[in-house]
């Protein structure tokens, strides 16, 4: 008893002598629930290992899934884009030539050689749609940018109708998986021809104006967020400007160095102004005098062509009927003068 009492007293003394910050905490590990067996852990480890060895899962087309209903997908798509299609033209627009050939071969193998069961592919629709797109985009650009030389209109159109960007549009509207084709994933050219076929189908079902509206809403709208001025770059900037002034019978433009800063450093900056008949018509900056001259010429050219930098806003909502009735071609660059354009 005495020893126990002595031990207690000693422990109280010890506890009082030790500071609060020195108290040791014992970490107790608690396992809740049933204890898991080692076999289960081994199995999970083995499964993980095999998954790593097998590599990433191969991508499969959505159509291979059990719950795929192609007809209802097509119906939902037509509702999504707000168009009505006649005589199965939507299904025809999505049917590629390669799919038709594949189906015919399968039927032959099965011994089904029925002449009435012929699938139609989208080639004729694609031709129609491409023609409409190319024509309408050019007309739209000419209506929106009436002062721009014809060459630049063509270059913007080519930029808009690049296969990569058109293929991107069809992926973005969720039509990539609806394409009936033998290859997976779909190639760019397949997506492009399907997109044009879709436009052709709309034109066939609802008329030219409706097809043009689709082109406006999807192809022209893809210009949004892009720098249009970057697409309007003549090869020899100052020379182009000079030729325009000479054609107009005016004094040739005169470049002058307005200011420069840090010319003996590795980050010099020059500013060139362009003057004509003792009037300042434009300014440009650059790392060298040549760059600054090019940029100054560009600023003058863009102002003359009706696309002033940081001021110009492209109109995306032009009336389709008005665009389709615009038969005027822009003035080509080799004949461009300010008198020849009607605007401004």
């Amino acid at each position, binding site marked *: 008893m005495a020893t126990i009492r002595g031990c207690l007293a000693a422990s109280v003394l010890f506890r009082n002598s030790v500071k609060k910050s020195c108290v040791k905490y014992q970490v107790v590990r608690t396992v809740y629930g049933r204890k898991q067996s080692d076999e289960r852990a081994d199995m999970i480890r083995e499964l993980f290992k095999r998954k790593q060895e097998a590599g990433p899962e191969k991508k499969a087309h959505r159509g291979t899934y059990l719950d795929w209903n192609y007809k209802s997908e097509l119906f939902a798509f037509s509702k999504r884009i707000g168009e009505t299609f006649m005589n199965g033209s939507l299904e025809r627009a999505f049917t590629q030539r390669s799919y038709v050939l594949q189906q015919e071969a399968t039927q032959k193998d099965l011994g089904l050689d029925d002449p009435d069961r012929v699938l139609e592919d989208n080639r004729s629709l694609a031709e129609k749609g491409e023609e409409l797109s190319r024509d309408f985009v050019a007309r739209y650009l000419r209506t929106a940018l009436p002062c721009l030389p014809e060459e630049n209109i063509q270059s913007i159109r080519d930029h808009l109708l690049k296969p990569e960007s058109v293929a991107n549009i069809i992926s973005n509207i969720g039509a990539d998986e609806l394409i009936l084709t033998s290859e997976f994933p779909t190639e760019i050219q397949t997506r492009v021809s399907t997109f044009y076929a879709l436009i052709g189908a709309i034109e066939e079902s609802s008329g030219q104006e409706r097809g043009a509206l689709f082109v406006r809403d999807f192809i022209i709208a893809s210009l949004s967020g892009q*720098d249009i*001025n*970057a697409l309007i*770059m003549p090869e020899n900037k100052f020379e182009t400007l000079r030729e325009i002034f000479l054609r107009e019978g005016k004094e040739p433009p005169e470049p002058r160095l307005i*200011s*420069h*800063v*840090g*010319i*003996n*450093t590795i*980050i*010099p*900056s020059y*500013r060139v102004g362009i003057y004509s008949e003792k009037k300042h018509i434009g300014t*440009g*900056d*650059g*790392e060298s005098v040549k*760059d*600054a001259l*090019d*940029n100054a010429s*560009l*600023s003058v050219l863009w102002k003359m062509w009706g696309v002033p*930098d940081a001021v110009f806003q492209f109109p995306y909502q032009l009336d389709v009927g008005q665009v389709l009735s615009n038969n005027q071609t822009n003035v080509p660059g080799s004949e461009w003068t300010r008198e020849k354009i009607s605007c401004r």
Partner: protein
Amino acid sequence: MSSFRRAQQWATFARSWHLYDMKWQNPYESAYVIKKYLSGLWKPIYHPLNNCGDHVVVINSKEVALPGDDWYRRAYFHHRRYAGSKSWTLAWELHEADNTLIVKKAVYFALEKGLFRGNQMTRLHIFPDANIPPEIAGNITNQIRPLRPVPSKLEEVPDEVASQCPQLFDLPADFVEGSDLWGKPDPERKAQPIRTPYKPKGQEPW
């Protein structure tokens, strides 16, 4: 980004070069003027984390003018991190050792503390007189207006001009006591107590 937009960005972030004439100027007040240009505070793109400061070339740092008796009263503390290596250098001693240091330290203390201070100090170019190397002189595109106009000394006025000035009073030579000592350190001036919280070792008065 088109080449045009790229050049716009280039011009926006171009570093300008400013000239500041330190002749007869108070360095501690001028430092706050120089700070505005060194840290780019005057630019619309300014942000404390934006490295957009300009270069400032200071000339005539030799002829800097300290207010009052600061040449004798202002001490610059330095510690070499060795035991007993504290030192207090008076402003006139520092200026004799290096005639750009007063301006440099004034600007250094005026700038905001932070990681950019060292970078901003490298863009400060101080010259004791008006001789600037041609590669630096070629960069300068702006002059900062000094805080005060530089007065002309009577000694520097030519005799012909001085003689034409009408003398209204005939004052005795000793009208102002000690006027012959103006502008010069007083040889008989007693050592003044240094206005710092510590004193050098071995000189305690108690």
